[in-house]
Structure formats: structure tokens, C-alpha cells
């Protein structure tokens, strides 16, 4: 990326005042990146900005309260930062934000689907339009647009909303003005029994690792999540699909009006359960009822933590 060096320079400038800067670097194969914690000069060089940087690094911030932390954010990640600031879960004074224009990240499961087997990736060359992945000596050429994460296709916030350092040229806010819920709307048209069956079938393979929760930048209960507590005792430890689904509803509801749809819950899921749709549904209704979108304005209050005496968009049942 053109501005990678510029970013390194900014980090170099800011680092002396900071305990750590979180960015990304290469991982176990050329198709993967990993969060990268920069403590000193020797770590700066490893920083890489690429479409493989899927991780939302805002996830680390609430757990680092009290430390001076720099964080590199994509546009979508910056919304998580805004939401965390809004809810006073992190302090603005402690956070230094590095922004850059993001052109989208790659959805690994799409790559896997396109190529079939990606166990041994030897190289991955990326250009603006395409990428060539060599697996077991065989090159596979893919269009970037085919393997771009869904959220990136209808991204409306490619540039960080909030930043202390911004490198590269800003990409103007893209259309459409409203989030894209086409897939969700298609699903909503299914018969109720199909919807019901769908979730049971999908959740069945859940291993209750709670990566969805741990990867979520706004799941701040962390060690005290009600999924595992006995008081309150919301869920049993039985291996049943009811409790697995119930947890997803808990997560979605606790995210209502707070979720920025970064998609980390679904990306983190080791068994690829399409749980983002539940959050999208919640967000769609939040937008409908409260005309509200999380993580775009520092001064907002999440809608479920406030109220109006007269709710314009709530029509109660007439008995």
C-alpha cells in the first residue's frame, strides 16, 4: 500500500509517548495477517497494511484501560472506537488513533470457497483489482471484488471517522446512504418454520467457544458474561441448541443500538455460523425505529439507554 511507509512514519513519531501501537503484520501464511503489537522501533518495520487486515483492533482497547495505546483503524473499526468512547468504556486521552483510507478486506471463507483448498498457500500477490494465490504450486487468480467481505461492498465509512493521524487520501463517503440489508430481507421472506429451522441447523455445530463474543469490540462484560454465570443463570451448560441460540439472541440484544456491524463475531466463529445476520436484523430495526446508527457520532446515546416521551416511530397495538 502506498501510504504504508507514511503510516510507519506517523507511528514512529507518536510511539515515544505511547505504551504500544496496535497494527497488523503477516501471519502463518501469505494469505493471513495478524494483529501486531508495536512496542519499539524493531516492531515498526513489520507493520503491513493490506486487504488481509480483517481484525478489528478496537477489540483490544477496553481491556487496556489506563495504558496509552495507539491503534490503527479501518473506517469500520473506527466506528467501534467511537462507540466505545461514547459509552465511556475507553478514554479519549489514552487513545491515539491512526486512520487510513480502506478499500476493503478479504473474506477468507470466500477465498476458500473460490479456490477449494487453501491449506498450503505459498504466496499471495495483491493488486488493486485482483489477487493471485499460489497453493501447492498452483496459481489461482481471483478478482478482489469477488472475495471482498460483504460489509465492504456496501461500506459507507471507508475512512476513519475519528483519527489523530490520517495517512493517504480520503475516499469520499460512498453510496448508498443506507446500509445494505438485501440478503437479510431475502431471509426474512422465508416461511417462519424455515427461519426457525435455519437457526437450529446452523447453531447445532456451535462449540460454545464464545469467540463471537470475545472478538466483539463492544462485548465488554468479558469475564462476567451471563453465558457462563450461575447467578444470573440464563444458560445451562448442557449441549443443546436452545442454549446456543439463546446466547446468540442475548448477544444480539445486548448489541442493539451499539453494534457497528464490523462482523468480527462471524469472522471469529471457527465453524462459520452466520450470526452477523442477527445483529444486522437488530440494526435494521434500530434504524427503522430510532433512526439511529451506532458509532458514528461521539455525542450520541445508544437508543436503548434513552427514551422519548413520544416515540414517532412506535405504533402500539390498538386493543
Amino acid at each position, binding site marked *: 500500500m502506498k501510504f504504508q511507509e507514511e503510516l510507519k512514519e506517523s507511528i514512529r513519531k507518536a510511539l515515544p509517548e505511547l505504551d504500544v501501537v496496535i497494527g497488523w503484520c503477516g501471519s502463518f501464511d501469505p494469505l493471513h495477517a495478524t*494483529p501486531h503489537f508495536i512496542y519499539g522501533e524493531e516492531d515498526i518495520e513489520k507493520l503491513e497494511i493490506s486487504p488481509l487486515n480483517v481484525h478489528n483492533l478496537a477489540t483490544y482497547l477496553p481491556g487496556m484501560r489506563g495504558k496509552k495505546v495507539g491503534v490503527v483503524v479501518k473506517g469500520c473499526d473506527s466506528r467501534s472506537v467511537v462507540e466505545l468512547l461514547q459509552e465511556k468504556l475507553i478514554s479519549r486521552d489514552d487513545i491515539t488513533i491512526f486512520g487510513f483510507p480502506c478499500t476493503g478486506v478479504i473474506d477468507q471463507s470466500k477465498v476458500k470457497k473460490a479456490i477449494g483448498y487453501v491449506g498450503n498457500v505459498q504466496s499471495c500477490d495483491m493488486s488493486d483489482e485482483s489477487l493471485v494465490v499460489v497453493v501447492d504450486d498452483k496459481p489461482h487468480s481471483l478478482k478482489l471484488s469477488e472475495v471482498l467481505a460483504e460489509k465492504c461492498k456496501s461500506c459507507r465509512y471507508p475512512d476513519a471517522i475519528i483519527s489523530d493521524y490520517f495517512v493517504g487520501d480520503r475516499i469520499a463517503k460512498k453510496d448508498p446512504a443506507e446500509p445494505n440489508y438485501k440478503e437479510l430481507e431475502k431471509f426474512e421472506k422465508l416461511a417462519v418454520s424455515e427461519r426457525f429451522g435455519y437457526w437450529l441447523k446452523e447453531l447445532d*455445530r456451535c*462449540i460454545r467457544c464464545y469467540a463471537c463474543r470475545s472478538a466483539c469490540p463492544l462485548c465488554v462484560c468479558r469475564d462476567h458474561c451471563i453465558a457462563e454465570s450461575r447467578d444470573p443463570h440464563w444458560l445451562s451448560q448442557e449441549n443443546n441448541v436452545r442454549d446456543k441460540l439463546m446466547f446468540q439472541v442475548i448477544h444480539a440484544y445486548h448489541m442493539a443500538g451499539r453494534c457497528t456491524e464490523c462482523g468480527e463475531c462471524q469472522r*471469529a466463529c*471457527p*465453524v462459520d455460523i452466520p450470526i452477523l445476520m442477527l445483529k444486522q436484523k437488530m440494526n435494521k430495526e434500530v434504524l427503522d425505529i430510532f433512526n439511529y446508527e451506532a458509532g458514528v457520532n461521539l455525542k450520541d446515546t445508544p437508543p436503548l439507554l434513552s427514551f422519548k416521551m413520544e416515540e414517532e416511530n412506535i405504533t402500539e397495538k390498538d386493543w
Partner: protein
Amino acid sequence: MTLVKYLKSTDLKSWLAELAEKNSVFAPRYEGDSVIFAPFDPEQEIYTKSAATVPPKKTVFPQSEKLVDFTYHKDPENPGKTLIDGKEVLPQGTTVVFGGRPCDVRGFSMFDRVYLTKETTDIYYKARRDNTSFITIACEFTESTCFCHWVGSSPSDPIGSDVLAVPVKGGFLLTAVSARGETLLTSKLLLEGKPKVEEAEEVLDKVMENLGKAPDLSKSPGKLLEVFDNMEFWEKVSAKCISCGTCTYLCPTCYCFNITDEIQGLKGSRIRSWDNCMSALFTMEASGHNPRPTKAHRLKNRVGHKFSYYPDLHDGIISCYGCGRCIKSCPAGVDIREIVLKAIEFMPTVVEE
């Protein structure tokens, strides 16, 4: 003389269907974008190319299992008197697991050293272990996260398996590696395997070649103890860990559990479910004190346990067979190999006298 048979890929389902007549058969298949072990269903495709997303651990050590069902019986004459009647829920029947990988299946040998010792036998574990046979597929391809050869195993390691299946052109060469394995290879669908033995050896040689050279991990137990108190080291290597349970739940050698009672009305069950040392609750004490308060403490435990404490107790055997799932599926890209190597290479800044 070992029994070798050749199975045509096209006969795989028929063979499993035969096995399913007397056993419950598990085989890997796609569910969504993941490969998991599910009860054999002739209508679904079986995935055999590479290791499944989730290992077949649950076939012997379920994610959650009932240990005891109990009922409170009230004395009709005196409701104050209650009799508790509890029954162990022992698993019944035999199971055949097709399609695990050597690293998956060998993992149970780690369990055996804990659940089947001279002093104690875990009856639930034993019942499943004794009644489960494994038809393991040797790996034809290696993945960038594979490191079985670092930890004393190999893509064709037969330990723990009953039959080893080596992919050859058009099918598998099946080798019985246990007496129980031989009984599995009696089907008329299976052809004589000897003509394929050479081809199978070539496949395995090629895989080993691809794996490359393994680093020497023999120092890891001692080295990890050396850095035990170096929290700065552990904080740095655990910085990106998000404390979920993916690594432990996908690990074929992680055997920790939690026990809870779930009661409704007069009936209840005592349940054993997977537990996860990455979670703060794992070591949370009733007082509220937590001896492993941070993720650094917890990741230290996980790495330490596998590469130091377990080997110390069990003849130097590392409690990891290098399947690499903890690396591949980690949402944050934590790489256990990297941590072990860092510990081995770690040079204290203060030189001893």
C-alpha cells in the same frame, strides 16, 4: 502380516453404510463452510481431502455429557422426606469414526494418561474409548499450520488408530493397525490392497518431504519454566489473544472439563462439559480470587501445560500433536509454535554469574 485392503472412493459410502449397521458411524462433512464430524448420512458428501475444522474429539469426549440423571422422590405420606435417586448415564453401543487425521486420533493417548490411570478410571471416558474405533486418513497434503513432525508425530502416525487409510489414486489403501482394525476390514467391498502399497509409500514420502525440517523442541520444558515468572514475556506473546475458547475446544488433546448440575422441578442431571483455560472463570475461586487473573497467565498455562508440565509428568511427551487448528482457527492469529520457539530462544537480559 498386516492386513491391507484397497477401497475405491466410489465404494466409501457403501462401506460406511455397512459399518453403520452395527455401529454409529461418524464421518467428516461440510456444515456451512466448516467441516465437522457428524453421524454418517448417505445423502451427504464425505469430505476427505484435509483435516476437518473440528476434530472428532466429541466422539469420545463430548462437548457436554450427562454423568448422572437424578430424581427427587417425595414420600407421599410425608412430603418432607425426599429420596434422591441417581443413575449414571453410561454411553451405549459402539462407534466408528472415519476420516480423522493421525494428529486428531493420537490426541486420545493424551487423554488416556489422565483418565485411565492406575489410580483412577473415568468410567464415562473408558466406556466411549473402549467402544470407539478410528479409521484414520493419513495426510496427503500438508498445511502451513501443520507441525506434527515437530512434536514426534507424522502425517501417517498410526498411534491410537485402528485402520490407517492412505489416499491413493481412486481410493484409499486401508491398513489395519490394531486387532480391532482387522475386524473392520472384512467387508466384501474391500479389494486386495497389496498392489497399492508402493503407491501409498510414495504418497507418504512426498508429504514428509513437504513438511521440511522440524526444530528441536526437547528444551521446551525447561525453557518454559525459565520464563515462567517473566510476565513481560507472557504479556507480549499473549497481547493479541482475545481469551475465547477456540484453541482449546478445537484442540484434540485438551481434556479439561467443568461439572454443573442442571435441575428442573424434581429432575436433574449432572453434566460434564468442556472447559477452557483461556477463560477467566477456569480458575476463578469462590472467594472471587483468581490465581490466573490475566490472559497472559492463562496463555502461559496453556503453552506451559502442553510443552512443559505435561512432558514433565509423562516421560517428556509433549501434549500436542501439531494439528495446527489453534493457529488456523484463532480469530486473532495467535501461533503456539511462535511462542514455544520464542521461549526456547529467549535470552534473559541479566546474565547469570
